[in-house]
């Protein structure tokens, strides 16, 4: 099996605030991330897809296609946006890099039709990142598809 990783960068604003907590609790738990005016980061997203290279093309997946998926699913939704207010996939959640990674996984997983999504890594800064992977042992859509004898369609390049 081969893992292929593609990296993109997007810039977005966020802040951490839980309306169920008192103002003091919010400040204590979230510190300066609780500033209601928000603040921003240059996020770096690394998306890893695993699979066997196609014998015809030598590729696990068409990176051009992955680039388009990342543009559509991530850049168009999150780049130069406020994650608290403008990204429905994060509605009602604290937009930590843990939750951003999980939201991006859920957006990408159904769109990856060549190979399978292996890992989503979101860097909030060079010194802090979250990884999202499938829980080991959890059935994936892929496994279920394989069990029913379904084959994932390869798109014509």
């Amino acid at each position, binding site marked *: 099996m081969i893992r292929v990783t593609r990296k993109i960068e997007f810039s977005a604003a966020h802040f951490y605030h839980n309306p169920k907590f008192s103002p003091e609790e919010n400040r204590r738990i979230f510190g300066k991330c609780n500033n209601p005016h928000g603040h921003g980061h240059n996020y770096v997203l690394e998306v890893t897809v695993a699979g066997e290279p196609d014998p015809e093309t030598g590729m696990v997946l068409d990176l051009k296609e992955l680039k388009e998926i990342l543009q559509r699913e991530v850049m168009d939704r999150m780049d130069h946006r406020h994650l608290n207010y403008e990204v429905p996939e994060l509605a009602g959640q604290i937009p930590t890099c843990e939750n951003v990674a999980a939201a991006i996984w859920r957006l990408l997983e159904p769109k990856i039709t060549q190979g399978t999504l292996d890992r989503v890594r979101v860097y909030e800064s060079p010194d802090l990142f*979250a990884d999202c992977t499938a829980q080991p042992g959890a059935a994936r859509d892929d496994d279920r598809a394989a069990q029913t004898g379904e084959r994932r369609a390869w798109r014509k390049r």
Partner: protein
Amino acid sequence: MAQALKISLTRRYRFSASHRLHRAEFSEEENQRLYGKCSNPYGHGHNYVVEVTLTGPVDPATGMVANLGDLDPFVEREVVEQFDHKYMNEEIAEFRDRVPTTENVAREIYRRLRRFPHARLERVRIEETSKNSFEVSEEGAPAVPGID
């Protein structure tokens, strides 16, 4: 049914320290052959980077595997304050009789950090230089006296 996801959080810390790779029970020639210039009697130093990976459920109230407000002071206290600008062979008790290779430094740091109470320590990875790195995870955890 939503797919079950595993989330981990990784934070990088830095310290600068010196060490010497040398074992008193080996002859000078053996030390030279084994450790080469790392055995220079005056020691030498590195800018170490410690990458700490934690895993566990994301608390829905905070969106976090672990709060950096807890993790940063813990790592500062248990590792950075004790290793930064020190000569590990003499100033870190665990290396008085154990050679402070970065393998052993990684294991020692793993041992200290696994006591973090708010999430499970998954991995410690240390960059000794931008060209060398060393990783310890649960299966590589040391059977060292005093380990929790």
